[in-house]
């Protein structure tokens, strides 16, 4: 790659222009038909096309200019910033991570107070915390146990539908259904866990992906129970210790002598999901210190060594799946009660990909990283709301860019689960998963 050349090498303008010309030629080949020509259905129903050579020329010339700039002006600019920092700064930075987590939690706690009047931001905050929670749940499976799960959305769906169906058919309240949804999702996790016990790496990935699709297709086609593509609507909202959030005289507002405001419920929902996310985080951190958590991490590092040491890989894997699935189920039940409406459309592979991206880009196994990644991804996603059409494109491109420039994720360091006195941080450079290395 050209930007790996020595910065003091004399500038070879000829080569740079040649490289840019080749890039422009490639771009022309790529975009000539798909951008240069637009197909639409004409009045007779047959396809007609219109040409857009202006847009094509603009894209090709910008590729030329960008490549030229990269080859001339920005040479050597790719030197990693972290590599330039002195060691002392890095140690200080890693020490700050502890404070950063605390600051993050404090900020999360005061969000509804600061942004009380801003319904839009509150909704966004709920969304971010929901995905953080999903990230924490998936982190148990992928980050701790090292089992690549591409169908995590299945457990989210099981949780959401469990709550919606139980509430619909048996009229139970959210607070009774929440643990039930978690338990049912955990069973779904065990159901997935059994067949995949013997599978490794990418086989596991594809089976979990298939499992996610199976669940979605069943929800879509079992019309009698799930309503099929129409989904389930009028899912009951949660109450505050039996006080509903409505303007009636037995409502939350009237009981506390407040003026009724729909924001009360939003704030309440925010604290519910925040509590759930913090619970997930706390359970994960505690589990890491228990034998089962250590077994998960050992399994991630080396399955063969694990078995040699007498770790029961079957139960280890199954508990990881069940535990991750349970938290996914909680988040699903919350999603159902917040939306009031669910349909299979909310549980597509794109959701699994998003959660997995949050976990991997956050730095696998790092709780803080997951929270930061969820904020960055979903916040960034919202920033592009005005460019509705382009935001999924930007999202995909951002995924590629982040993974290329920070392949270990945003928080690449790893805190040891168990330490004697001082909490050392394992630097990113030596964090290595034996199981995830490409086989030599």
């Amino acid at each position: 790659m050209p930007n790996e050349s020595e910065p003091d090498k004399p500038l070879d303008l000829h080569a740079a222009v040649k490289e840019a010309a080749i890039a422009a030629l490639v771009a022309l080949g790529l975009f000539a038909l798909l951008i240069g020509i637009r197909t639409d259905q004409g009045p007779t129903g047959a396809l007609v096309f219109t040409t857009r050579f202006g847009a094509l020329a603009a894209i090709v010339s910008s590729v030329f200019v960008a490549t030229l700039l990269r080859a001339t002006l920005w040479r050597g600019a790719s030197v990693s910033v972290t590599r330039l920092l002195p060691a002392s700064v890095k140690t200080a930075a890693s020490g700050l991570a502890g404070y950063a987590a605390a600051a993050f939690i404090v900020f999360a706690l005061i969000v509804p107070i600061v942004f009380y009047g801003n319904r839009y931001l509150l909704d966004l905050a709920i969304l971010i915390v929901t995905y953080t929670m999903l990230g924490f749940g998936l982190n148990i499976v992928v980050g701790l146990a090292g089992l690549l799960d591409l169908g995590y959305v299945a457990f989210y769906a099981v949780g959401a539908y469990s709550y919606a169906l139980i509430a619909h058919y048996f009229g139970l309240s959210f607070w009774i259904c929440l643990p039930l949804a978690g338990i049912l999702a955990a069973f779904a996790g065990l159901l997935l866990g059994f067949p995949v016990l013997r599978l490794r790496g990418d086989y596991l990935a594809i089976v979990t992906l298939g499992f996610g699709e199976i669940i979605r297709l069943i929800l879509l086609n079992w019309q009698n129970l799930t309503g099929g593509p129409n989904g389930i609507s009028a899912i009951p909202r949660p109450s505050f210790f039996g006080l509903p959030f409505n303007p009636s005289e037995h409502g939350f507002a009237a009981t506390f002598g407040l003026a009724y405001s729909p924001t009360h419920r939003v704030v309440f929902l925010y604290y519910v999901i925040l509590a759930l996310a913090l619970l997930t985080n706390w359970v994960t951190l505690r589990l890491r210190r228990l034998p089962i958590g250590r077994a998960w991490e050992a399994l991630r590092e080396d399955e063969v060594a694990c078995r040699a040491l007498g770790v029961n890989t079957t139960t280890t894997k199954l508990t990881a799946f069940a535990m991750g699935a349970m938290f996914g189920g909680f988040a699903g039940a919350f999603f159902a009660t917040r939306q009031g409406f669910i349909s299979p459309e909310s549980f597509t592979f794109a959701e699994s990909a998003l959660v997995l991206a949050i976990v991997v880009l956050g730095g696998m196994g790092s709780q803080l990283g997951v929270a930061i990644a969820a904020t960055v991804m979903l916040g960034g996603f919202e920033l592009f709301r005005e460019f509705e059409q382009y935001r999924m494109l930007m999202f995909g491109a951002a995924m590629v860019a982040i993974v290329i420039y920070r392949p270990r994720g945003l928080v690449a360091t790893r805190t040891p689960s168990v330490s004697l006195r001082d909490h050392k941080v394992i630097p990113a450079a030596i964090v290595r998963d034996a199981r995830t290395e490409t086989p030599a």
Partner: protein
Amino acid sequence: MEYFVQQLINGITLGSIYGLIAIGYTMVYGIIGMINFAHGDIFMVGAFLALIAFLVLVAIGVTAVPLALFIVLLVSMALTALYGWTVERIAYRPLRHSFRLAPLISAIGMSIVLQNYVQIAQGARVKPLPPLVHGGYTLFEGNDFAVRLSNIQIIVVVTTLVLMAAFSFLVARTRLGRNMRACEQDLKMAALVGIDVDRTISFTFVIGAALAAVAGLMFLLYYGVVDFFIGFLAGVKAFTAAVLGGIGSLPGAMIGGILIGLIETMWSAYFSIEYKDVAAFAILIIVLIFLPTGILGRPEVEKV
């Protein structure tokens, strides 16, 4: 019986398309051990390129169907191969020595990019193409059910067979094929004996994408409609086919593709059309439980 034979023909046709896509997955997996998640979308891009090339050809007056088909085949193979090359260059090559999940995430990102790029550039609505190849043969008639073999089915299966033969020759007999096999066994060692590993991997992506483009054209001819979302499901099923046949094995990809095509068609014919995808995935899971390396896959040796 007649009904069964008809479904058999339909299943093999569909399976050939899956098989062509599956080859791209299995080759890339064999060499660099990654799931090229964007491969299904490369197939979709190939179908779109073929569609647009057709329209342009008709507009400039090439109306003889065989000639147009041939030109479209070459154009879409070449341009889709360029997509395959670019995707590898941008999204996978920088991650060559990264940890294993990184290329997968990058591939998922690339898949999202390709899907949305086509959606923006060409719109989200389905694109119909009037049937170009007509006619067919009635093989035999039973009690009020005629078994039909359409020309388009013949084209799909014959093209697939020819390409498979050409491709097997390429892998078995040419210098490039030898390099590919060497890289598959050991990337580092291949580099040590003077094989340009980067170039070989690029070629693998180029060939995989070109075959996906053929599959895209066949899909377009067979079904007559494309949209920007066809890549996901076709990609997942083709990957399932590659795993079923034994990942890394070329004949395995073809066998797996045809099996998946048959399972899907038979299931929709005899049970329920809604659950045909469930059947395909369920069978994948069952096969992996009892035959974890697929039908023709080599057993993975666990090294400590």
